[in-house]
């Protein structure tokens, strides 16, 4: 599998490094713009008024972040579609590898770039803000974060959940593109996959929340203990707990179980279709 992963990486890195470069430039421009606005309106930086501008900086950074992820997602999705609709498929599908190896490679590289993009945007913006807006807000933010209970576990659990969510979403995209290609040969109505994606995405979300509701068993990752629904409700009503991000490290065990089964099912289904059903007409 890693043979193809290497070429998938080589084929994508120029665009994605360029995208990361653009995000860095955009982030810098946003922060410099807000710094100039602040200086002009309020006087010296570093005073308490500096915090008033931070929500706007955060908002702008969030839009950059979302924009970058959409660009990367569109690029990676179109790279998968090209295998099924364009001439390059004649090379890819003639290579001696299984559908699982092809899909696994695509998935690994897409996930890799999503993670790299996320980390670069986050770390760069934080470091840049530290220099642009001075250390005060930064230190205060660190103090607030440090007070959160089980911060390390919360970060790990959120990261894991984000990775699982990304994998499920990517697999659902690949699944719907592949099933569209198998059932509708024409490229002209190849956009059908997106409609199917929205329908299946909503359907699976509904199933997941139904399962989570009917089997209300939760795991608090910060304490590594199981919670019932009653206990979860009680904790949410406790002001102290809310301050301590009571729900941050809590996951639904049945919901997570469904997601894992869905991930395996989508992977196997897509890999099977890639290997046995795709006709390059």
């Amino acid at each position, binding site marked *: 599998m890693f043979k193809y992963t290497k070429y998938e990486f080589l084929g994508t890195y120029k665009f994605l490094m360029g995208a990361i470069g653009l995000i860095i430039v955009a982030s810098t421009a946003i922060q410099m713009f807000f710094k100039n606005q602040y200086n002009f309106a309020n006087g010296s930086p570093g005073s308490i008024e500096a915090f008033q501008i931070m929500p706007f900086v955060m908002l702008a950074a969030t839009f950059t972040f979302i924009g970058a992820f959409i660009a990367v997602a569109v690029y990676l999705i179109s790279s998968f579609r090209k295998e099924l609709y364009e001439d390059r498929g004649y090379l890819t599908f*003639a290579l001696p590898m299984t559908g699982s190896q092809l899909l696994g490679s695509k998935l690994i590289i897409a996930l890799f770039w999503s993670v790299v993009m996320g980390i670069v945007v986050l770390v760069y913006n934080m470091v840049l803000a530290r220099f642009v807006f001075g250390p005060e807000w930064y230190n205060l933010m660190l103090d607030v974060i440090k007070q959160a209970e089980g911060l390390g576990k919360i970060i790990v659990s959120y990261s894991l959940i984000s990775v699982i969510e990304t994998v499920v979403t990517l697999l659902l995209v690949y699944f719907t593109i592949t099933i569209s290609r198998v059932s509708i040969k024409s490229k002209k109505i190849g956009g059908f996959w997106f409609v199917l994606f929205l329908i299946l995405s909503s359907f699976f979300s509904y199933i997941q929340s139904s399962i989570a509701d009917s089997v209300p068993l939760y795991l608090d990752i910060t304490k590594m203990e199981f919670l019932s629904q009653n206990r979860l409700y009680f904790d949410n009503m406790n002001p102290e707990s809310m301050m301590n991000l009571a729900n941050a490290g809590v996951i639904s065990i049945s919901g997570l179980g469904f997601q894992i089964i869905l991930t395996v099912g989508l992977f196997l289904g897509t890999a099977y279709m890639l290997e046995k059903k795709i006709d390059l007409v």
Partner: protein
Amino acid sequence: MENIIEIKGLTKKYNRTIALNNIDLDLKKGKIIGILGPNGSGKTTLIKLLTGLLHETKGVIKIDGHIPSVYTKSIISYLPDRNALYSWMKIDDAIKMFMDFYEDFDEKKADSLLEFMKLDRTMKVSELSKGMKEKLNLTLVLARKAKVYIMDEPIAGVDPVARDQILKAIIDNYEENSTMIITTHLVKDMENIFDEVVFIGDGEIILQGDAETLREDKKINIDDIYKEIFG
């Protein structure tokens, strides 16, 4: 002589259109076989079924005793009728990719073929002309010591000089124990290299046989037989 390819009752339909209709075909090891027929006759469909790019509607294909699979893809060296190399690649990347995926790939042979074709490893695939891309693809295909070579229209759409170069490369680099299957409708240019020919029209095999025997029996060359059948 042992069969390398055995096809029984093969049918391929595209929706309601029948591209191949219940064909039976056995191809022997160590031969150069021409699959001849006009555009739309089913040649490329047959090739794609052998290479695993299409899946049969009905029937059985066996290549070296195996149905089309990862194994058969590893023993087939396939030249498609279009450039399929990724546009971001340099020639060097393409060679490395073939080395990674095919154990039978001979890098030295690839270098000598590149020299013969006047191509350089540093060239970008996206900047090559159609003829150069055809030569590069042929280089990659012939640099393997594969059991089966399958070439789909290798000389279509290239200038006469490139055509001669391609034909010379095919003849000079053919592995004696391998089987080479070549589809073409440019029969005159290629007929001298075929040991056997298979004429396909409207998804059916119209005539099959040893090229020399057919010439002797009909007292005309293969190109004229082609014109007689499809003219």
